């Protein structure tokens, strides 16, 4: 796929959608309209969008506790998403999952896990099934830099390379594992190098540059789809908000204000906007129209979530097993 006007505008619109959604969720958290723990994706939008642009509906995306961006980028329904944040019955997970457990099975979103690194081997398994069933789907897993401290990450890289499976590992290196800076977590902070040691391709890119993500992901997804095996993409980025909730973790003394400002200047949306204007792909009016449309969509989602039914306590035990309860 080329970086045509059409594609760039799609990438931009999807990024704006995630940004405005997350910033609205931050407000709703402050108002306590949303109460479940929420890990915001603001500042990392280019990664989910740049990768998912290469995926078809049947491809699988596995995600983490910070999953709203992946959900929206893969085509998950925005109303179902908001309703899940409200823990309502009409939420994508019927109010049983909350922000950290999002799925939209029909859109290739089988689920996200709050256990750091938990979905990495599961994505490898989906890729195994695709290969065994001889269908050319690809499995993608997003995870943070913190997950590379988990043993199962290394097991998964090895198993994927050993069996040459169609899986793409996307590490969103936002420099922090909850409160802890990467330099305190990893003796060698170049995560992409772990790929070579495990026998698969690895690359490190500027994750805030959606065109770089789009290019690297395009190559990795196409290689995986064509039977050439897995790859690891390390995307350097930064989450603007704190680990959890609407705050910035500056107040807690966990991060430096200057550092945050530096990264806000590297805003992935401003970066792509600049290119759109330079190439004359967009006017101020068109930009404003996109924002208005997205805002409307989010407001509709909030209205939907607000009016949605709460789960019925009589149905507490439903879905423990396929047949309900035992």
């Amino acid at each position, binding site marked *: 796929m080329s970086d045509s006007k059409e594609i760039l505008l799609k990438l931009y619109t999807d990024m704006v959608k995630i940004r405005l959604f997350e910033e609205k969720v931050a407000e709703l958290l402050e108002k306590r309209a949303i109460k479940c723990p929420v890990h915001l994706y603001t500042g990392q939008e280019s990664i989910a969008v740049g990768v998912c642009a290469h995926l078809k509906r049947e491809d699988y995306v596995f995600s983490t506790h910070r999953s709203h961006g992946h959900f929206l980028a893969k085509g998950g329904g925005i109303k179902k998403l908001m309703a899940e944040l409200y823990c309502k019955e009409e939420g994508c997970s019927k109010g049983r999952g909350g922000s950290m457990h999002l799925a939209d099975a029909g859109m290739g979103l089988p689920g996200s896990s709050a256990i750091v690194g938990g979905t990495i081997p599961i994505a490898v*398994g989906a890729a195994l099934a695709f290969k*065994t069933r001889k269908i050319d789907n690809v499995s993608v897993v997003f995870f943070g830099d913190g997950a590379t401290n988990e043993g199962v990450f290394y097991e998964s890289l090895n198993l994927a390379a050993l069996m040459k499976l169609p899986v793409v590992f996307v590490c969103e290196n936002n420099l922090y594992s909850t409160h802890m800076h990467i330099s305190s977590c990893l003796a060698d902070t170049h995560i992409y190098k772990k790929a070579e040691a495990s026998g698969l391709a690895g690359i490190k890119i500027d994750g805030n540059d959606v065109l770089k993500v789009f290019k690297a992901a395009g190559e990795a997804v196409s290689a995986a789809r064509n039977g050439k095996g897995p790859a690891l993409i390390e995307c350097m980025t930064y989450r603007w908000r704190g680990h959890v909730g609407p705050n910035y973790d500056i107040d807690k003394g966990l991060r430096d204000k200057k550092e945050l400002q530096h990264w806000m200047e590297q805003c992935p949306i401003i970066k792509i906007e600049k290119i759109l204007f330079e190439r004359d792909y967009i006017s101020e009016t068109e930009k404003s129209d996109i924002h208005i449309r997205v805002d409307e969509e989010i407001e509709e989602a909030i209205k939907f979530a607000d009016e949605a039914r709460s789960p019925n306590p009589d149905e507490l035990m439903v879905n423990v097993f396929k047949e309900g309860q035992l």
Partner: protein
Amino acid sequence: MRRISYVDAINEALHQKLAADERVILIGQGVTSPWYVGNTTVGLADKFGSERVIDTPVSESGTTGVAIGAALAGLRPVLLFPRMDFMYYALDQIANHASNWRYMFGGQNNIPLTIWGIINRGGEQAAQHSQALQAIFAHFPGLKVVMPGNPYDAKGLLTASIEDDNPVVFIDDRWLYQNMGEVPKELYTTPIGKGAVLRTGKDITLAATSYMVTEALKAAECLERENIDVEIIDLRSIKPLDESLLFNSAKKTGRMVIVDGGWKTCGVSAEISALVAEMAFNHLRAPIIRVALPDAPAPASQILEEAYYPRADNIAEAIRESLKNYS
């Protein structure tokens, strides 16, 4: 009817399920190496190939995640652990992921996964090559747990586990592997959640799991000579338990001894004991007695092993105890 060994019953179930359903795969350590898993997988790799019979390195957590993911993408994996002791490495994937997945996402998808754990103990193998972990797995809400006690149920429960749309932990004990029994040639299932009365009796109920059923039968034969008439229940499913079978038998005999090959504290025997007390207290004529492993790691020394693993003698003694003090 044809009589075959427990090992051959397992092997036949796998051959027939892999042949009948192309979604079924077998994945785990040693599946291509017959000695590793007591000959249960003989001939599978040759017949079905390395794409469906997948031998894995020692990566229990990774491999379990792989099996879960494969289940989410259209396969029905059988995930093998040649020793239960190594399943602790896989606990996060089993308890946090497989067990929770369906519920956590509002029932959008299933994990049709058979988690096959083998109890491999005795022979001075010591604490990390001996464990029977049925109680741990029965504790997690989204898992079913089954334990066959004979060749018929080995084939029937393994088939039922593979056909179930939920994660099922299928636990078998290598002490059963050479037992012979009647096994139909064709595929059939032993229903999950149903126990079986192996011997009817009026004096006392003996509820046992897995290999302990064999010891329970020996104990009952011995007690027959003392004119004690023992009813034996083979539980077959640890979760869900066959509550009505337990209730009816407890109601009839008024006495119960529970025999399980796991540890006593918070074990399967403790759970059944509590359940029977809740359901049938008014019918009980004596306290429920548990025969289970002492709360110690498995020892190596054969002399200590003999003291550690309960046998028919210990069961018979428990039954005499129950009958002696209360009328």
